[in-house]
């Protein structure tokens, strides 16, 4: 009954013009990577201003990842993944939810560190940053494959799937 309340799906199989998830993830990818770089530079140069920049970027990334997941689930549900794309889409979904927990945990840890002493962070936190960076980069690679290799939500793939050519 609710499908009648939504706008009709367009030639990208979306109820709105273009995919939104890849836009929201700007604010997860860029903020995590830049926040980690700021923390590393601050640690090496003792420029404590950059710790503050690292912290705020992590806060922004943590808020953004939950919005990214909401749009990601909507667009994954409308993606008509064909056989070759399904495994990577599932892994991207699993890793996305896991990253939200990891990112929220790291930012919470950072909140406590910053409350105690905003001018320093422990090496164990920096190593957690490194783990986070590796997972984010792998997640970006999976998302890239979904868009640029499998072409999910591109016009040609949606047309082929609707025509029954692509299963």
């Amino acid at each position, binding site marked *: 009954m609710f499908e009648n309340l939504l706008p009709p799906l367009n030639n990208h199989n979306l109820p709105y013009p273009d995919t939104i998830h890849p836009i929201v993830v700007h604010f997860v*990818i860029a903020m995590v990577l830049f926040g980690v770089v700021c923390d590393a530079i601050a640690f090496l140069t003792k420029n404590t*201003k950059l710790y503050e920049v690292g912290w705020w970027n992590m806060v922004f990334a943590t808020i953004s990842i939950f919005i990214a997941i909401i749009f990601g689930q909507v667009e994954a549900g409308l993606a008509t993944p064909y056989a070759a794309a399904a495994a990577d889409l599932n892994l991207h979904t699993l890793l996305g939810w896991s990253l939200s927990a990891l990112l929220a945990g790291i930012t919470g840890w950072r909140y406590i560190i910053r409350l105690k002493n905003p001018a320093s962070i422990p090496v164990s936190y920096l190593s957690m940053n490194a783990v986070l960076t590796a997972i984010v980069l792998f997640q970006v690679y999976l998302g*890239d494959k979904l868009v640029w290799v499998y072409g999910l939500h591109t016009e040609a793939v949606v047309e082929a799937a609707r025509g029954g050519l692509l299963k």
Partner: protein
Amino acid sequence: MSLWSPILAAGANGLPYVVPIHPNLVHLTLGLFIVAIAFDIVAALYPLEKPIFKFLAIPVTTSGLYDVGWFNMVAAAIITFFTVAAGFYEIILAEPSDDVISPWGLGAMDTMVWHGVGGVLLLALIVGMTVWRGFQRYLWREDRARQVDWSYLLAGLFIFVLMFAQGTLGAHLGGDFGVHVTADRLIRDGLDPNDLSASTPFPETSLADASPSEAVTTLPTTEETP
């Protein structure tokens, strides 16, 4: 065979690597610029937000918020040179579908030209904003509580609008024209993207199964397959 053909010898996506680089650098350009402006706005309006941060028990200094506005903007300016460079490389290698018109009524070539011009314009604006921001931070407003002029924040919001248009053109290049999308290239060559080694044509039975109303004019028939 030109001198460059080994370098340009690309996969099915028309690139000598598996996924395009430009859209990934775009994440950094847009994320860094938008967050830089956002934090300057949050800092400039801090008196209004003070109770919220207090309720959340997050200690805030406006100088820390302005640091985000400054360092994120510097990073956006640096990374965007690479974003534009990668974009032009991948435009040069683009083989867009020339029988498609975008939702904005533009063909592939027009969309690529506008996206290219827009990229250079935005690079100039981002670098200009960074220089403007630097002068405000270190010279003109060094002794002011509010580190940025309102006109700087308004200019940033205006650039958001340009970025939205530029991003939509870029989305058309990938999503509608299929530029550097492996599956789209394969489908337009009559191949099944389930086989990424690009050797399996769509079976004729599948073509027959497609109902005429849903059949797609751009899908080639099997006689075009190698």
